[in-house]
């Protein structure tokens, strides 16, 4: 288990954040960690809303683990409401 600092942006918020994710985190965990800095703070929650994650423009399945990805420090990760 290794912490990896990334830049997480929840689409619709006005800035991105420094977020620490773990190599054992799933992409669903990563989405929740990024959303925690925006949703219910500056963006309203959506009932029954769930998230999806884009890395370098590609949609990443929620079960993928960080360790399976080649993330560099401060890699940019986008999260949005699932469409």
């Amino acid at each position: 288990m290794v912490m990896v600092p990334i830049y997480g942006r929840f689409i619709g918020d006005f800035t991105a954040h420094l977020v620490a994710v773990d190599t054992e985190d799933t992409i669903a965990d990563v989405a929740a960690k990024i959303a925690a800095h925006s949703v219910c703070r500056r963006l309203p929650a959506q009932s029954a809303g769930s998230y999806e994650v884009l890395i370098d423009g590609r949609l990443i399945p929620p079960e993928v683990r960080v360790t399976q990805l080649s993330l560099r420090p401060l890699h940019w990760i986008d999260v949005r409401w699932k469409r």
Partner: protein
Amino acid sequence: MRLLSRDDWYEISHDLDWTLSYVEESDAFPAEWTGSSGVPKAAWQAWEEPFRVSYRDYVAVQREKEAGVAGVRDALKRAHIYEHLDPAVAAISHFHMGALCMVEQMAVTMLGRFARFAPSPRWRNISVFGMLDELRHAQLQLSFSHDLLKHDPRFDWCQKAFHTNEWGILAIRNFCDDWLLNANCVDAALAVHLTLEHGFTNMQFVALAADAMEAGDIGFSNLLSSIQTDEARHAQQGFPTLEILMKHDSQRAQRVIDVSFWRAFRLFQAMTGTAMDYYTPVDKRKMSFKEFMLEWVVDQHERTLRDYGLQRPWYWETFLKCLDHGHHALHLGMWFWRPTLFWKPNAGVSRAERQWLNSKYPDWEESWGVLWDEIIRNINNGDMAKTLPDTLPALCNLTQLPIGTHWDRHHLERCESTYNGRTYYFDSDVSKWCFDLEPARYAGHLNVVDRFVAGLIQPPNLAGALAWMSITPEVMGDDVYDYRWAAEFNRPAARDT
């Protein structure tokens, strides 16, 4: 003996120079310092002072200005004006003093460099007066703050701020280190005299002075106005420099002005944009930040560019759109990360204030109001933890400002460059363009997030970051009205506005 009048001797003295015999010209005036590469030595003979002044004249005028400021200062102390100021208005002076006093001191160094290394003797001579101007500005702001220190420890930051790692101060210092302290004379004259002083200081020293006067902060207003009379004079030194550079290297002139204009704009979005549109009481505002920018900066800058044969920067349309948004983003960010400030920010989003914001910025509600709505809901639900940050925002590796704060949330795009194996992030394609022009100039620098990730800030949490920034409990930022403004949104009528 009767003293000669200035015109009797000025022509002989103003370009006093001599042929060096003990040292090489290139050793006494290295091109790295003068910035005269690409411009023949003879060309600098055409450098004409935009104003004429002798030391005797200068002292007489400055003495009168000083007497004026001192008179107002003494009268206000007796009248206890500061004690009766609106707290949001007082916050503007806390912010201003910390953010700008030491910039004046850095300008002393810059003008001292001009006085020694500028490629024209006329330029060297006249820079001595600019150096004295900037000394006066720094000392005025220190003495003003010293008077008020007994009322608020935040005035200590007038001297202290630039000796801390407070993130906003680091952004200003980064610009000043780059252009005031490290640039050669020619580039610094274009970036500082022409762009920062001639282009932008009207924002801080005219617009803010007018608002401060209206809001009753007479001492602060008087101080700003006195400083601006000097800035307006010595800022003109940039014009003869531009005129010569346009004949020999117009591309360089265009590049320096375009880069420094964008960087200066980003800082004034943070400093003046927030003060004018959020801190000044709504009934005391004379113009919006955007209106003032359009009238005093945009028109003037366009005219300067046109008069000297320069093009508008390639990013002009982006810049104009950013006038509607960037300072709202910076304001929201500064308020949300308020424990990292050394002044108390005013949210400035009460019902009446939102009405004013929407009248000046038609997209404000959709871009910014919705974000404030969630904050207001949390305040009114007593969930204050959700109105405070748990981490740092992503920061631009050029401007050092939060990524996403140049425009609005709909235009937040990932912008990056890779140089020598490291990825650098930027708040905009304009900042990326600045970096890509001269990557070696900026590469290697660590912004606050980079330092956090590198383990240079301990303990690695928000408390550690605040201690690293020298933020102490007696100055730590919090809502200046203690959140009382949010209560009106509990009433159903608030939803109709």
